[in-house]
């Protein structure tokens, strides 16, 4: 497996509070990596480090994250280019109050690309990749809010795929969805890793076990254990990991 992302001694502070404590880890190309841990352990914050979304909230960050051989926290790094390369899907489906088509086209249009045929092609491809095309191909002009919650989340996935990212970050993408929509998105994740690298934060331990190749267990800002999912769930090294994955606390 190719190492795509390398995190080195990552620290993150919100004001005086340290949320991420010296985390180092590697993320491998075209795998699904799950980040698990109890509420408030910093797993969402860690995920948001990979596309620098914490910058918006005024976080202080030290250490480095190497992606394609470049430190994304370098002073010369282009944040908007990074965010096109590292897409993100949020906990609550958050399509823009625009049409289905315009939602997917958003990321392409803000790059200044206005060639209609290219945009249409890209929108169709992204919707197909997110398994939404068949359901919406006849009503692309409809408002995104006319879709169900699960469809909206897949629309958000399509929207993030439209900028041809190398990595897609999913922040508890199924926690607001019903079981049927959830399993659809889980299957989709497994399919998507043929093309992109996926990092997923989940509070659902079973979900991590079902879909991920690697799992990171975070506890109060520390990376307690990081290993192949199979290993981490069957022979955890740290007693805290064992307690968490067997449901003794959470």
């Amino acid at each position, binding site marked *: 497996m190719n190492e795509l992302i390398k995190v080195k001694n990552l620290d993150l502070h919100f004001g005086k509070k340290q949320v991420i404590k010296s985390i180092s880890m590697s993320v491998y190309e075209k795998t699904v990596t799950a980040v698990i841990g109890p509420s408030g352990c910093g797993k969402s914050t860690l995920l948001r480090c990979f*596309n620098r*979304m914490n910058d*918006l909230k005024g976080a202080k960050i030290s250490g480095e994250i190497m992606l394609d051989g470049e430190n994304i926290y370098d002073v010369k790094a282009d944040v*908007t*280019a*990074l*965010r*096109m390369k590292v*897409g*993100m899907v*949020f906990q*609550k489906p*958050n*399509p*823009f*109050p*625009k049409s289905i088509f315009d939602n997917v086209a*958003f*990321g392409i*249009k*803000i*790059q200044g690309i206005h060639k209609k045929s290219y945009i249409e092609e890209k929108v169709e491809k992204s919707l197909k990749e997110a398994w939404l095309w068949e359901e919406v191909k006849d009503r692309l002009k409809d*408002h995104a*809010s*006319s879709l169900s919650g699960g469809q909206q989340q897949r629309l*958000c996935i399509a*929207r*993030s795929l439209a*900028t041809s990212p190398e990595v897609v970050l999913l922040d508890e993408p199924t926690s607001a969805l019903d079981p049927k929509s959830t399993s659809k998105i889980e299957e989709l994740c497994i399919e998507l890793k043929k093309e992109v690298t996926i990092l997923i934060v989940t509070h659902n331990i079973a979900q991590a076990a079902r879909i991920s190749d690697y799992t990171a267990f975070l506890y109060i800002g520390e990376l307690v254990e990081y290993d192949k999912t199979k290993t981490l769930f069957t022979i955890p090294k740290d007693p805290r990991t064992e307690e968490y994955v067997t449901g003794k606390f959470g």
Partner: protein
Amino acid sequence: MNRRRFKERLIKALLYISIGITLIFLFLFLFHIFSKGFKVLSWSFLTEYPKSGMTMGGIFPAMLGTLYLTGLSMLIALPLGVMSAIYLTEYAKTGWFTEIIRTSINTLAGTPSVVYGLFGLSVFVLMFNLGVSIISGALTLAVLVLPIIINSAEEAIKAVPEDYREAAYALGANKRQVIMNVVLPASIPGILTGAIISVGRAAGETAPILFTAATFYTRKLPKSIFDEVMAMPYHIYALMTEGTSPDFQVPIAYGTAVVLLILVLLINGGAMFLRYRMRRRRMS
């Protein structure tokens, strides 16, 4: 127990009485204006010039003047107000400087309109040497409605869910793109609300245009924004205070009031319909 039920009923009765009194006043007001004004209403009242020392004829120049003044003031105030609101919500840092700006805007909102008239006279008419003209009046009216537009636009922008902004940033949008492509489109219904209230104010105010734009009587229509105009609120005021034959002129004043009411109602109705359609499109 009985005491509590009595109290409950008493409060309810008071509420009913309050809304009843309000409705009675509103009805009386409309009835009064319409009954005194509708006699003079006709197609020619809308299309003709005043005649025979303003005892006959129509109010076409005053209508046109009010439309010009209101339209131009909105053209000035809307972009200015919306951009100020964007600055205040998205760019201004919290601190004493921003607080001073906010306090100033709220003070402006509470200033009597005749003060705006004096301000317009000394600044736009005299200092900028724009003379008594449409542009002076429109600028004065624009300053008058600016606080309304800023406040409503600010509320609308603040009400845009953080989710949308995050989604846009996560797709690689920069701040300008987030504001232009996501925040502003989502806040248009709220901004329209401010615009609706502003149109009503701008069209109906007399004092701000008294010294800056309006003239009692002119036979020629304005050729440019540097000409003075007749305007409906001032027309009413002039007919009621300076008229020499009230028997003929008072009905014309009431008729003008009816037209002004209907005009503002139509503009508001149009804007409300627009807002309703936008909201519904968002919901469906």
